[in-house]
């Protein structure tokens, strides 16, 4: 178990290096464009949006370099650790395939439940977008939705554990998850705070880049972990 965990943490760290590259290439241009808009264009810079020209004494280079890397690595290593533990729990209990297939299922389901579904309801905002007065409500609603998504995934997986037919298993599991999460998405408040003057292609570019960054982090953590376990963890 200790070895699995070490491999997981290592996979997360490797993945965050790859993700750092993608974030620099795909994400930073959108981030910089939004910050430039915020500081120059008084039209989109509503008085109530946070001002990024004040970065608390930190340069953009520090934020986009070491800051970005440390943030990604912390999340990547945590993800790798959780993946290792999920793998240990699922293998031989919920999933009976090869190491790679098991890791593939966990990573895909986790990515859908932790990233894609919460993102559909609460997409991330670029600088210059978002009302500071609702940050408390938004953060709370987001984490509540995320927690519910994970709990519902666990519930759906446990509920279909005993079903023999693979097809029925997937249909019923997906049905439970989609039903609960659709209901929650309708009941929880939505926040429509994008200033109409904010360029919509930049908003799209920013949000697509957050999905790309998360997809890279999850996919590369999963691939690295699967490879590491097959290579160094067969005795576990």
């Amino acid at each position: 178990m200790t070895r699995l965990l070490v491999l997981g943490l290592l996979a997360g760290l490797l993945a965050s290096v790859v993700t750092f590259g993608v974030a620099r290439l795909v994400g930073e241009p959108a981030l910089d464009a939004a910050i430039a808009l915020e500081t120059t264009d008084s039209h989109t810079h509503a008085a109530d949006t946070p001002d990024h020209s004040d970065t608390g004494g930190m340069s953009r280079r520090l934020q986009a370099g070491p800051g970005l890397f440390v943030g990604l690595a912390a999340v990547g290593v945590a993800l790798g650790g959780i993946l290792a533990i999920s793998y240990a729990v699922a293998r031989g209990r919920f999933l009976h395939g090869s190491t790679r297939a098991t890791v593939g299922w966990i990573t895909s389901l986790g990515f859908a439940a932790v990233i894609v579904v919460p993102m559909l309801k609460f997409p991330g905002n670029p600088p210059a977008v978002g009302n500071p007065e609702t940050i408390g409500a938004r953060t709370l609603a987001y984490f509540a939705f995320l927690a519910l998504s994970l709990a519902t995934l666990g519930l759906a997986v446990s509920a279909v554990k005993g079903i023999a037919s693979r097809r029925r298993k997937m249909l019923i599991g997906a049905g439970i998850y989609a039903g609960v999460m659709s209901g929650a998405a309708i009941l929880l408040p939505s926040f429509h705070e994008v200033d109409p003057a904010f360029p919509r292609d930049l908003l799209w570019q920013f949000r697509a880049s957050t999905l790309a960054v998360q997809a890279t982090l999850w996919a590369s953590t999963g691939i690295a972990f699967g490879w590491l376990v097959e290579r160094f963890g067969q005795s576990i």
Partner: protein
Amino acid sequence: MTVATRPAVSSALPAIPMGDIAPWAILASLLAVLVVYFVGAEQGAWSVIAGTDVHEFVHDARHLLGFPCH
């Protein structure tokens, strides 16, 4: 094809005892919550540490991971 027609799968991966996993699972979950909190939300909606240094340092990571930031 049914599983029974296959030879006993020698490569079938054994389940790891829950007792071995549980302590790690608890520790890792708690640490992961802390990490996600500090990277994703500290000094946004809530503050444990005064000032904005944590927020500003992980600023780009928080935005690009798609957290509701500010």
